């Protein structure tokens, strides 16, 4: 399941709902990764644009990769402004086995950072500034140059 929310995530609600959804699935390990906006420089929030059709395909491919290892992945992300000290991102792995869960959460989160079609902006004095210095070209970038 992939879900997008306007503004900051309700972290506890999402954690608990995902736990309940898999309460009888007999997974031995549940590892959520919770990303929270840090207070840095003078930002009051971060803001996110998401291109959902490609994010959905990216996520579905990960669901298939997880399934081959007996696991599932879930993901929630914020759209728009997310104030500091609140959460913009949660992803999670459920797996029968500890090792698979620990490896998958690492690969899933890293590939998310590299290839999920999401753009980040600092919000400073109410205006959005693209976080160019923290952004990375997706796999295959430069095709048209």
């Amino acid at each position, binding site marked *: 399941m992939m879900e997008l929310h306007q503004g900051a995530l309700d972290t506890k609600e999402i954690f608990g709902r995902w736990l309940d959804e898999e309460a009888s699935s007999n997974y031995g390990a549940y590892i959520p990764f919770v990303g929270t906006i840090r207070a840095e420089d003078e930002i009051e929030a971060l803001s996110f644009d998401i291109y959902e059709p490609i994010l959905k395909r990216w996520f579905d491919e990960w669901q298939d990769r997880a399934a081959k290892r007996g696991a599932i992945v879930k993901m929630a992300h914020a759209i728009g402004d997310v104030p500091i000290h609140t959460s913009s991102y949660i992803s999670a792995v459920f797996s029968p086995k500890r090792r698979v869960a620990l490896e998958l959460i690492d690969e899933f989160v890293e590939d998310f950072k590299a290839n999920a079609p999401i753009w980040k902006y600092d919000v400073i004095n109410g205006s959005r500034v693209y976080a*160019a210095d923290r952004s990375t070209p997706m796999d295959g970038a*430069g095709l*048209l140059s």
Partner: protein
Amino acid sequence: MVRVEFLGPIAREALEIDASSVQEIADRLREDETLREWLPKCAVALNDEMISDLSIELKDGDRVTILPPVCGG
């Protein structure tokens, strides 16, 4: 016609381009000064599927999407 869309921070309206391959889209966009800094860092999708081949042929109604550097999370 092929529709070319620019995502995220590339502040540009979509273009309608008459092109029969991804190569022709590349040729046209390279002529655009304002895209010069973006193109080397941008990935490309065709009808919402990521592509990595300039020789792909295009047909009328196709949608090419230009994706600048990302930072989710």
